[in-house]
């Protein structure tokens, strides 16, 4: 297999291996190379003594330097808080409108808002804020409640049907389940809503439902079904449906009146975070 031989030209032994006629000379390594190996060994031993190194049964060797990645992260987070203190103070002192008007402050608020939104709001409203069935889309100009900067800020503080004091509150009755209307009346109402939103509804049935609509629905949704933001009543004529646009889904909503809940965030976030979040949501919605 391997045959060590002496190379004629250099007088150096070969390693004895051969690849396609190529042989390798077995020249000695420089001695300092060996020193570097021992220096590496010495370094490792010093490292074991100073730094956390060896795992044990119920812990690990801590090392004399007392180094801890956890403590380091905590320290860095604290330092970060201090860095952020300046921006946070500016948010506290400025009004929402001032924050939105100042490019620097706006950038800062948007960055904070995005991060907070991703951690807290995206669970229901989606990463981009597009919402889902039962959870409003925050990106369009269609708002159940006040969509101005201050309105959004207020909704964030008190929530919707959150049980918090002063919470936004509206209630869609469960007309079918609570036997306020008959099944036939609800069928007719469904057709009317379809007609109002320019969908393919049965006009005859819709006309039958008009008195019922005037009696039961107008107080919140208005005579033309345009809704009322002060009461959190949705516009029934646009293409946006919280619980779906189909005949089936509209009927279900009239029958059982689902009323979603949004928590109040006032106690969970500090003021500047809430402000930043409001500016972020307002900006994302196009800020009308």
């Amino acid at each position, binding site marked *: 297999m391997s045959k060590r031989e002496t190379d004629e*030209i*250099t*007088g150096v032994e070969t390693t004895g291996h051969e690849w396609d006629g190529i042989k390798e000379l077995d*020249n*000695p*390594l*420089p*001695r*300092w*190379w*060996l020193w570097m190996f021992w220096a590496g060994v010495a370094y490792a031993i010093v490292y074991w003594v100073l730094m956390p190194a060896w795992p044990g049964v119920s812990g690990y060797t801590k090392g004399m330097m007392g180094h801890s990645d956890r403590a380091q992260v905590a320290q860095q987070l604290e330092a970060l808080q201090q860095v952020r203190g300046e921006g946070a103070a500016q948010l506290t002192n400025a009004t929402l409108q001032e924050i*939105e*008007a100042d*490019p620097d402050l*706006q*950038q800062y608020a*948007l960055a904070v808002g995005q991060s907070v939104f991703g951690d807290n709001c995206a669970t229901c409203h*989606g*990463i*981009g804020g*597009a919402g889902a069935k039962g959870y409003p*889309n925050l*990106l*369009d*100009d*269609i708002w159940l409640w006040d969509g101005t900067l201050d309105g959004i800020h207020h909704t964030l503080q008190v929530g919707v049907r959150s049980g918090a004091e002063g919470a936004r509150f509206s209630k869609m009755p469960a007309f079918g389940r609570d036997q306020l209307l008959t099944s036939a009346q609800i069928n007719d109402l469904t057709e009317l809503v379809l007609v109002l939103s320019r969908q393919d509804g049965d006009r005859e049935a819709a006309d039958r439902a008009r008195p019922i609509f005037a009696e039961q629905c107008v107080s919140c949704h208005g005579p033309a079904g345009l809704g009322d933001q002060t009461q959190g009543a949705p*516009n029934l004529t*646009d*293409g*946006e449906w919280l619980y779906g646009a189909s005949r089936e889904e509209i009927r279900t909503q009239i029958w059982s009146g689902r009323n979603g809940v949004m928590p109040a965030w006032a106690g969970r976030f500090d003021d500047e975070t809430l402000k930043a979040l409001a*500016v972020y949501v*307002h*900006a*994302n919605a*196009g*800020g009308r």
Partner: protein
Amino acid sequence: MTVVIDRTKPPEGDQAHKGPQSAAERARKKGDAGGGLYKPRAPIYPKLVQGRWRNIKWVLLVLTLATYYVTPWIRWERPGDLPDQAVLVDFAGRRFYFFFIQLWPQEVYFITGLLVIAALALFLTSALFGRLWCGYACPQTVWTDLFIYIERMFEGDRNARMKLDASPMSFNKAWRKGGKHVTWLAVAFATGGAWIFYFHDAPSLLRDFWIGQAPVTAYVSCAILTFTTYTLAGTMREQVCIYMCPWPRIQGAMLDQHSLQVTYRFDRGEPRGPHKKGASWEGRGDCIDCNACVVVCPMGIDIRDGSQLECINCGLCVDACNEIMVKVGRPKGLIAYDTDAAVAARACGEKPAYKLVRSRTLYYAGALTLVGGLTLWGLSTRSPMDVHVLRDRNPTFVRMQDGDIRNSYTLKIANRTFEPFTAQVAFAGVAGAQLKTPGAEVTTGPVALTVEPNQVRAVRVFVTAPREALPEANMPATFSVEAAGATQAVTTSFLSGAANAR
């Protein structure tokens, strides 16, 4: 014509050198004697030599070191709070300043271009003139030369140094050795100290450094470079070139028989042997085996063994041999910058031909011109502004109350100038599109965005279009941004889902 010249056979019997051996040879012997896996470093005592190549080396030594130490102190006026240092690698600010050029991290391809140019230039030089870089300009060579100069100041020339090393410890030996090492360390410290000035404002860093206020990285870098300069130039020297540096191995692929290299013209030199004054030169070579070429070699080799991995092409042996040739009354140039092909031709009694233009050099020159041209073209047409458009993908579009469709984009506009500018952002591709940015009014015309000098500004732009203007679900669209006399158009798309609309 390919000629294989084999002059590497070890000398036999009495033919073995009686004079000073090359360090390589001594190390080989010592390694053999130990029979070990590891070879000790045989110290090299290069003798001082006078001559043309030595003078060129002195001049280059002064020039390269001066460039290195002085460059960070050159000032270059820039507006505002921007650094006034001509050459600055600003890691904290993520900018690279070089006189009138200022590069951003995303323009690192210019650095890549520069490195490719440097590599190709090295290839071309090597193919033409051998390892000139190694012999004259490589920091390892320059600092080693400087360190040997200091060594000579304290310990004298070759013979004195050898005697001193062999002598027992004494006061004389102690102060000479001590002085040398202290001076070495001082130079090494100055080297490491100069390095850090390339990364921070030099005058303020110099002050901060001595009062302990400089960044930790400055002290660490300075310490590392002090250590490496001291060891690599002081005690490692040729070991760096032989064992650490990959270039000696790579250069084998660049050289051919037409490359100029420091060459022992064996056709003229052999058979070698001692020569008595007045004796005839008939029937013998010009080499008088005086070993002058061996004792001056900083790599500790014998050039008469032929071209070899260790040779850095510095030409000191040329100077040494010329001195001897003049003394013995023979023509200069027994060792000279020459090509293998020329030596072989002369050996056959032909006239040597030098070929600078070869396919190899043409390829290297062509590649060098191409890459150099591309880099220069890129630098000269570099836009003062850079625009990126990121369109929202979650959701791809939003339907508004009145049925209009809105797409959202994040525009990143980079101001690469030193003055603030106002960028005019226009949107094209969808009729009747309206633009809006947070905190501003809706507009149909271009949106004006102010960008601070040397900064990137990221802005969300909302584009709303009526449904009638969107016959296709996917409309190609363009953002064109105009600022600082430059215009940049970025293509994107406007999605509406119109094809699936109810």
